[in-house]
């Protein structure tokens, strides 16, 4: 199990994911990717869906990846890694490789909740031995902050903007972590870039399982969330402490809440610092904030009931 000291020590080793990429300051993606890859012992091969992470880390002829890495298209990170993993199993069986190799797929929420959901579901059902990581920043950030099915209710995006008549996205977000858990895979974890030891422990568990595993990681986008870059971690922490984004796992079917806030904060503390939610704080929209609070509360109670 990781602690702050081990996380720091791992940073001293040869990095699997290098600096020098062009992701924004305050972006949660490199924090998540580095922490996850640092949690793997031994070689790891990654597939990456189209998105900020892919674009900003592999502009030809540069690469931030010190591990084998493949990008195919937007919606098929899971199908692609299932091909790589199947090839590995067969080549190993035929004696063409002897290494023990881990496999990971990275994709954003658009590439997972929306366009890549079928590819992910298929790969999970087929039982490939890999870890799928969704880096959830709640919109299509790479293409300009368009709404995805992971966009939280009340957030303003470029395709579901707040205006005179509307406060932004009207619908509650899809609960992907539960959809994935319903596949009955060995391990599902929900984590955040604000809680790195928790994230690292979940990554370690995921990689050590046989079969498909899944991590859903809350990741700040300073542009899309309209927050100052230096507040990136702090705001993700608010998501966790308000229980908007509970940290939990489903380990071999068993639910565990891995972090329980000392004091569950009101959801406004998560919403208010983010300008994407600004229109919710017009007087007329107080009932929407209440609805969001009710949703968070009932989801949290449901999760606690599953975990007991």
């Amino acid at each position, binding site marked *: 199990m990781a602690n702050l000291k081990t996380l720091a020590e791992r940073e001293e080793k040869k990095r699997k994911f290098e600096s020098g990429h062009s992701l924004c300051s305050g972006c949660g993606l490199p924090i998540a990717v580095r922490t996850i890859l640092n949690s793997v012992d031994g070689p790891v091969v990654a597939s990456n869906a189209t998105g900020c992470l892919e674009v900003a880390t592999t502009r030809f002829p540069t690469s931030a990846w010190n591990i084998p890495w493949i990008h195919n298209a937007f919606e098929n990170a899971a199908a692609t890694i299932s*091909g790589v993993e199947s*090839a*590995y199993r067969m080549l190993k069986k035929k004696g063409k490789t002897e290494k023990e190799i881990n496999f990971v797929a990275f994709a954003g929420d658009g590439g997972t909740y929306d366009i890549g959901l079928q590819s992910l579901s298929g790969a999970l059902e087929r039982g490939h031995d890999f870890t799928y990581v969704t880096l959830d920043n709640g919109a299509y950030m790479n293409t300009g902050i368009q709404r995805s099915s992971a966009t939280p209710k009340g957030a303003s995006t470029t395709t579901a903007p707040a205006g005179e008549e509307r406060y932004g996205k009207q619908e509650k977000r899809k609960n992907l972590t539960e959809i994935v858990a319903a596949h009955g895979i060995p391990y599902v974890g929900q984590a955040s870039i604000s809680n790195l030891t928790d994230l690292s422990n979940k990554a370690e568990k995921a990689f050590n399982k046989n079969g498909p595993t899944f991590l859903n990681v809350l990741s700040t986008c300073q542009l899309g969330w309209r927050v100052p870059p230096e507040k990136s971690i702090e705001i993700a922490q608010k998501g966790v402490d308000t229980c908007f984004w509970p940290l939990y796992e489903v380990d071999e079917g068993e639910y565990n809440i891995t972090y329980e806030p000392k004091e569950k904060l009101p959801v406004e503390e998560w919403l208010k610092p983010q300008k994407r939610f600004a229109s919710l704080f017009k007087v007329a929209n107080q009932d929407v904030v209440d609805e969001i609070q009710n949703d968070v509360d009932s989801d949290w109670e449901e999760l606690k009931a599953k975990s007991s």
Partner: protein
Amino acid sequence: MSNGNKDVLTGHQVVANAMRQVEPDVVAAYPITPQSEIVEYFSQFVADGEVDSEVITVESEHSAMSACVGSAAAGARTMTATASQGLALMMEIVYIAASMRTPIVMTVANRALSGPINIHCDHSDSMAARDSGVIQLYGEDAQEAYEFTLMAQRLAESEDVLLPVMVTLDGFTLTHTAQVAELLPDESVKEFVGEYEARYPLLDVENPTTQGPFDMPDYYFEHKLQQVEAMSNVPDRFLEVQDEFNQLSGSNYDGLFDSYKLDDADYAVVILGSTAGTAKVVVDQLREQGKKVGLLKPWLFRPFPEEKISKALRDKEAVGVLDRSLSFGSSGPLYLEVSSALSEEDNKPRLYNYTYGLGGRDIKEEQIAEVFEDLEDPDLEHEMRYIGARQ
């Protein structure tokens, strides 16, 4: 299944057997008529221990080709098969497979594209992939489909090619009919295809590679030109592979297209796939009547062997090009290629375009004979003619 003997087999069976003999490391495929039985037979070979391959039973053709790209990039010999809507669905990744230089061999059991939905043969599916960067080989019968599948493996993996190869055979006409076919002994095929060593396998964890990176305008163009160069190497490599294959099998492939009584012909038709077989019968009948007619059947459609086809056709009086797909608002895809090939010739033949067989519409001997009759008319107008369609 006997090897090295003539047998009566369906197109499905011969292709599945070619795959068994090649023994790819990975096959990723999704069911679709009229392809499904190829993968069914192959899966049975796997279940019976007759071939050591991993079959990924994906949830769509899009994932089939996506998994194939992952597998081939990993360094594994990889195959798939599809048809029609399946090819259309995987099309995005077919382009990527070519650009990532993955030597995937894929069978396409030609079937009309929707809509209206139709399960029968035409070439609209594979023609839609003609600009994707894959090599395309069209077979006339089960035997050619078998032999091209084996040759495709070598062609795809040629060091200065490294491109996916699509081997097509006409849906139902070839896939579902039993024909006399001769399979090579397993060990001969093993020797012919050899072991595959990928140059930059993703699984080489000591020498990590970044595959499929992001190109800005400063590199994209050059990367596409590398594909152009690879494609330009295909004709020579195909001829070399044919030579080796002939030595192994006693076949006599000797070109990029099949010529039937073409050399001294005054009138010729150009046809892809199984209808070429019917046309050969017609050529024989008309030859008996003293008519100097012949057939050109391209094996290789991508890259299109312009120069050689131009040479073979330029001294004809008239040529009829029979397309089995439409390019709405333009001439047929095959016609455009032939027409372009002949465009530099000073005394080119009169050239006519016919569309036939859409959605599995039969084409009969007498209809091909009528085409030859048309060609003899020096005043024949240049317009698309639709064979056997109610107007």
